[in-house]
């Protein structure tokens, strides 16, 4: 065997090995989800008797009744996710613009305070937050979660957008300034459109967070008409007890939107995770 062909043999082997590895990781991640979705079509008894078989008949009955159950939670989740995404991204983008573009005294300190919010653990802040929101009369409302999700995600989102804005050339701002644009116009018409990729990433990351958040949702909401899907699903589980088919169906329904969003936007998701590294 010549050196060249032996090299290509090993290159092929490592390629094949890599594929095998990725494939098995993929199976490990996807299979439980698939199993859950299939479970939603089975009868409760089949789930116990033949946990790994395909459904005997494809019945949507479980999904229909599960939908009845999660509808209300779905609406709350949608509302809270959409509104907190808008507020978080908007506030973060403005903050990042201020931190990168405007002259201000003690800018490093301000930056440290804003980004330092990432260190704050939600669990530590729970008790004072409950008291605060109660006295504000926001406890057990959608607003409670919208405000909390915004407050706790602004530091991280600002961090991502700021890193991106630091890389946008200053000349653009200055050209716009010479063109007579004020800071608001520079932000809206120059910087914000150029930040589109990172804004998209931030939107995706925030949707993932807000849709799945459990701790705050459990503590700050009581009324089923206010509760979000993660909390709703737990209470469904405890209520329906052993009707696993129903529970699987409900879980599948609540996971579906996020899975779709993830697949549509995964390139932004990946960029969001790599942005801010190496700065």
């Amino acid at each position, binding site marked *: 065997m010549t050196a060249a062909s032996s090299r290509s043999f090993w290159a092929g082997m490592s390629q094949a090995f890599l594929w095998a590895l990725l494939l098995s990781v993929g199976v490990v991640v996807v299979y439980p989800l698939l199993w859950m979705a299939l479970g939603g079509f089975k009868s409760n008894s089949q789930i116990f008797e033949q946990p790994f078989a395909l459904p005997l008949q494809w019945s949507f009955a479980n999904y229909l009744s599960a939908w009845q159950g999660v509808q209300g939670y779905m609406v709350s989740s949608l509302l809270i996710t959409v509104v907190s995404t808008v507020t978080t991204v908007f506030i973060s983008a403005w903050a990042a613009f201020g931190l990168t573009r405007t002259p201000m005294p003690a800018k490093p300190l301000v930056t440290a305070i804003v980004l330092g919010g990432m260190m704050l653990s939600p669990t530590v802040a729970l008790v004072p937050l409950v008291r605060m929101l109660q006295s504000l009369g926001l406890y057990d409302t959608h607003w409670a979660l919208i405000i909390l999700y915004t407050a706790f995600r602004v530091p991280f989102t600002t961090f991502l957008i700021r890193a991106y804005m630091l890389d946008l050339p200053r000349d*653009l701002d200055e*050209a*716009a300034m*010479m063109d007579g644009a004020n800071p608001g116009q520079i932000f809206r018409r120059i910087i914000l459109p150029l930040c589109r990729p990172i804004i998209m990433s931030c939107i995706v990351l925030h949707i993932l967070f807000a849709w799945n958040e459990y701790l705050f949702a459990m503590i700050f909401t009581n009324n089923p008409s206010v509760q979000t899907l993660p909390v709703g699903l737990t209470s469904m589980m405890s209520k329906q007890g052993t009707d696993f088919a129903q529970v699987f169906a409900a879980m599948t329904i609540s996971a579906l939107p996020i899975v779709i969003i993830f697949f549509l936007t995964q390139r932004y998701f990946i960029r969001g995770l790599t942005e801010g590294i190496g700065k």
Partner: protein
Amino acid sequence: MAELRLRDIRKNYGTVEVLHGIDLDIRSGEFVVFVGPSGCGKSTLLRAIAGLEDISSGEFRIDGALMNDVAPSQRGIAMVFQSYALYPHMTVFDNMAFGLKIAGFRKDQIAARIRQAAEILQLTPYLDRYPRALSGGQRQRVAIGRAIVRDPKVFLFDEPLSNLDAALRVATRIEIAKLKQAMPGATMIYVTHDQVEAMTLADRIVVLRDGRIEQVGSPVELYRRPANLFVGQFIGSPSMNVLGGTLARTGPDTRVELDAGFTVAVPIPTEAAMQGQRVHLGIRPEDLRPCSTDPLFRATISLVEQLGEVQLTYLDLPGLAAPLIAKLPGHLDLHPGRDIGLTAEAANLHLFDRHENAIRPAEAGHKVAVPAE
């Protein structure tokens, strides 16, 4: 129409002063070039004029009105950036329209102005393109177009050609010269570190070094009568040869004893007090010519760069750190190792005192420099 007046302009960044008191008057309709080595403060001065940098002290006026605290967009100034700074998410049309839209112009007015500017700059076919789909030269023209449509009183250019390749640089330089001719009323200030651009474009050149003005004058003035050694060496390519020496005789008939081992008579009057002082003699490479009968000096050729029309001839002289360069006609038979005699017009000799300031010649006659016996 705009007249600029700068008085004792200073700029510090923290404790570091980068402009040390600039005084300069620029007439209406003038094309002024700031030239100087990298880091000498050209951009800083230009940006201070644009209003992108606050000046730390001093006064800057346009047509008599104090501009120190006027916003950049209110100064009637447009700037072409070195990086072009085109808005990447806007078409060529929108790039040019941006400033007009903000200023509140009507749609048809905007379109008319852009059509006219695009015509001048041959950008009409590209109005719907995005900057990323344009070549370097086209982007450059869009940047100029964006400045033109606002019809400013003053144009600022910060090294506009430095991102272009050599051929395009020459073509664009000519276009800028034409643009100036087409707008005789507009005052233009142009920054470059390239002395050829400065010489070809400027009505007046401002030579800067380390945040100070070294000399202001027309290209020919700077070339013929540099105020100091720095300007003498900065203007002209290859740069002026400098030979160290001492003043052997003062008075109307100055003699300089050079470290290179020969003595030159220079028709520049010197004061008796300077007798024996260190001086620098400057000779431009293009002012040297071969002379076999009665040369100023003889030297050995160490290297020849044949450029066709001329040959850059490098000569070894004792007591000189860098080789002496002579620009000699291309047809001469020159090769390394050969001995050659050279001379120069006496009027083309430059003399600088020990502080490197020029000692001014009297009215130049056309005597040939002679070796002093």
